């Protein structure tokens, strides 16, 4: 690890004041993603400002919705009764991610900010525009099995690894931020960006901006998360899918669908959503929506499988969310989210 200085923040404002003036300073909360990358010297902060002890650890009601403090652990959020019952997609995404230990450590604010799992990003000896702008993208012609099929650029084909972010993308969540220029609110779909020519920037956060809470608006519909991975647990998604359906009697009033593991950010599919709105759930409808969702996918050499996998997954997520097919486990648990289930009977 590159040597760095360490401070404990006393308030969000003080944390911002400490990080903002130093271009290589960073916040740290759970540290689960950061320390991993600091050990590889992919990240080399000069100063870490520890925000773990800040009073951002509450979950409270907010205008019919919920305000999730940025310092709440992934475990605490996933197990919170209001989250479990009203936003099962959040619990399912959290519990289908990482491990018990990591969920205990990782914060809600940090989770959506984790960096890509692209192996080329994580190996300092490989060319990577995200890690070292201008060095090129070795993944483009390398082993790109886990890479993007949507929204990639010639500079970067990485995907975003967070499960939670995919769930938040279908809930119209809002991110509250404090920064050197004051506080602001970011609509969740605007938090992450596509790589374009500047893949080094994952998000639209300015340097020194600190997430203080993630706000979930009121939601009375059905929501659900599904995840495919190469191992039954403790693995990143090959493809995942979050669905939120607002129902109007037997019809879908509004559908929101996001895909994970396929792009540099949680990938909303507006065309599919539009197709679903106002319709009665049916397998035929869902099949058509899944088809539309992947119409403009652009696979690389090793990841074309994500197209049929994603289509099938989206179809199943819609069937399960709408109730046309049963969930594979109790709502709000990893069992509901984990495609394929576990080994054993």
């Amino acid at each position, binding site marked *: 690890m590159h040597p760095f200085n360490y401070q404990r923040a006393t308030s969000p404002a003080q944390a911002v004041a400490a990080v903002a003036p130093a271009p290589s300073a960073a916040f740290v909360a759970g540290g689960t993603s950061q320390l991993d990358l600091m050990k590889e010297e992919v990240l080399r902060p000069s100063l870490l400002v520890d925000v773990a002890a800040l009073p951002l650890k509450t979950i409270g009601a907010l205008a019919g919705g919920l305000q999730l403090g940025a310092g709440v652990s992934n475990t605490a959020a996933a197990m919170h009764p209001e989250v479990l019952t009203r936003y099962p997609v959040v619990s399912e995404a959290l519990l289908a991610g990482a491990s018990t230990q990591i969920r205990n450590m990782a914060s809600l604010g940090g989770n959506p900010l984790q960096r890509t799992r692209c*192996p080329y990003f994580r190996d300092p000896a*490989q060319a990577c525009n995200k890690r070292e702008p201008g060095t090129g993208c070795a993944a483009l012609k390398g082993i790109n*099995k886990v890479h993007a099929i949507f929204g990639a650029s010639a500079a970067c084909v990485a995907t975003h690894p967070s499960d939670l972010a995919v769930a938040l993308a279908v809930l119209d969540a809002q991110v509250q931020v404090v920064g050197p220029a004051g506080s602001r609110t970011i609509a969740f779909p605007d938090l992450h960006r596509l790589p374009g020519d500047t893949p080094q920037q994952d998000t639209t956060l300015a340097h020194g901006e600190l997430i203080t809470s993630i706000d979930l608006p009121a939601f009375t519909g059905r929501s659900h998360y599904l995840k495919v991975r190469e191992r039954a647990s403790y693995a990143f998604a*090959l493809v995942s899918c979050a669905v939120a359906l607002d129902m109007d009697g037997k019809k879908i009033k509004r559908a929101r669908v996001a895909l994970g593991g396929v792009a540099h950010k949680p990938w909303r599919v507006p065309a599919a959503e539009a197709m679903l709105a106002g319709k009665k759930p049916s397998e035929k409808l869902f099949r058509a929506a899944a088809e539309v969702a992947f119409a403009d996918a652009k696979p690389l050499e*090793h990841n074309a*499988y994500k197209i049929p996998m994603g289509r099938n997954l989206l179809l199943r997520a819609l069937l399960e969310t709408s109730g046309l097919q049963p969930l594979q486990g109790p709502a709000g648990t990893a069992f509901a989210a984990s495609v394929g289930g576990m*080994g054993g009977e």
Partner: protein
Amino acid sequence: MVEVTGKPLDRVDGRLKVTGAARYSAEWDVPGLTYGAIVSSAVAHGTVRTIDSAEALQAPGVLAVLTHENAPRLQPFPEKVNGSLFRGEGGITETRQPLQDATVEYAGQPLAVVVADTLERARHAANLVRITYEQRPPELTIDSSSRRTLPETFTGNKEEKLQVTVGDPKAALAAAPVKLTQVYESGITHHNPIEQLASIARWETRNGTDFLTLYDTTRGVENMQEVVSHSLSLPKENVHVVCPFIGGAFGSKGWLFAPPLITVMAARVVKRPVKIEWRRQDMFAVAGQRAATRQTLALGATRDGKLTALQHDTQTHASQSSGYTEPCARVSRMMYAVPNLGFAHQLSHLHLPSPCPMRGPGETVGGWALECAIDELAAELNLDPVELRLRNYAEQNPETGKPWSSKHLRECYARGQEMIGWDKRNPKPRSMREGNNLIGYGMATTMYPAARRPAKAKATLFADGRALVQSATHELGNGAYTIFRQISADGLGLPVERVRFELGDSALPAAPTSGGSATTATIGPAALAACRNVLGALKRLAIRDAQSPLYGATEDTVEPRDGRLVRTTAPTQGEDYATILRRAKLPSLEAEGEAKPGDEREKYSFYSFGAVFVKVRVDELTGTIRVAQLCAVYDVGRLMNPKTAHSQIIGGVAMGLGAALMEETHYDPHNGRAVVRNLADYHVPSMADTPNIQVEWLNIPDPHISELGARGIGEIGCVGTPAAITNAVYHATGRRFRSLPLTPDKILPS
């Protein structure tokens, strides 16, 4: 006294392991310890043009930077070590000595080591060493290799030729009424024991000469002592290798010597003890791997399912400095009664890290290809897969013609079928479904060669009635501390609590590298010999002692019974061991013992057998496969301890499950760097993947292998499992998959 061998004793090192007190190689509290960190090659092929340590040397706490320009010189790697071929085509290991020249043969090759006073300082300073290269294009695939060879033997063993023809397989194939030729491919896999490679080297001067103590994660203290002393031109006795606990090996930690040699050189230069704990990332370059294979299986058979020809040709790869050849025909050469049998192995030398044995070397992936091909033939002939195997049941070894030492495979097939409910399945492929899942049943035969090697042991009786038995073997999770204590307790006629077994130290009586599922058959008889010898010495002491009730008896009329020596004809006349020693004013009495295989090896063919039955769920639309049920029955001779044996077997089975479904290391096709280089991307089975594996064994002693009747169990679980799973996936989906691992991307119909 009732024998304790064969009883399900709790592990005697259990308490140490569950309290964190078992001491692994990175954990010795050596005074004055410093830390080494490795700088490895960014490129796969070329030469180091410049290597600049200046900045690293300026960094806080840095004591030294060793590169090929300033590292101590090492002798060339030995040709053979303790009888095994190390060098050359078919040789077992990488013979490149580290930090001796500027040549780069694979990405991740160690090029420098930085030593500093703390781990963090060493690791950071390693990133400050600047290296420039003269790069050349790497050869990274079997087909692109410009250096291909046909190794004659596996590790120099004349009994194990790699290019063999029995009968005329070519003609027999041409004439066969039913023919099948298929190509099977398997990817590179890594052992990934949870304990990373680590060494601590400590130099000192003893009696005016250099003496080295090396704590290392090795399952071969004798080989390590030999290679290190040879490399440094030291007398063997001046190198002491210690390793009482290994955190798993599975084929690694035995055959690659660069990591400890680098530690040893670093400690020599800084004149302080040095510890190097290799990072998980490094282990994808220096710890060995199972090479990828491409295997062509050609089967010829009659219409009623009698095999007439079997040709098994393998293409695989090694590094530039290793000739290790994955011996994929190990199962094909012995499993079925086939008159015309041929196999060949072609080795491509690549700019990739060196391979080495991995659990079931050859058997795991070679057996997979064979057992999948047999399954395909069964489908072709419309025969039950078990029935086809029974029709070709080998009553003796088809390659050598020797009878088996002991073989009860038919019972394994029968019991396995019962356990899984084989007859209840619908044999028609793609006929069973539950919800999102297709259901499939599959089976495969498994085997493992039952090796035995020479070894020594020492037994010591103490005057307080306790005993100690020692041999330089290893505890790598195999239960060595436990089962050799059980065997020794019976050998000495003492309660198991009063006997203790020690291992993992080159100063102990010689024992081979722990591997090849040979440890029980090798060390057990040596321990028994030492026990007999020390009891013989004790008898002599007693019968010459006028105060002993055994005075005047002859050795053959005295026998051990319940911790006492007694007259065979009058068992009430006798005394316990401690009394004899105390009266002789001896604190202890010791004797060595030696055991080795004899001419039984000329007469018989020694193998373990088994059958694996699997039920899988295949969620075809997402490509995910889960093993719902796994039942396996083994004929492995007599079990020494059913409790530890059960664990070892299920561990092997789970590793086979990993090989079947998820384990693979990719290297970048252009620059040769490992793209999978951590445990998040290299998927070993997690608890969620592993079903409650049901294992049974026949427990029929092998009458010929040794007086213990035990064959090895370390690897047989891993063999067979991948084929059983692959065959079950065929039954579920009606589609054949001929490339390991069966990851979702391959299963999804396009």
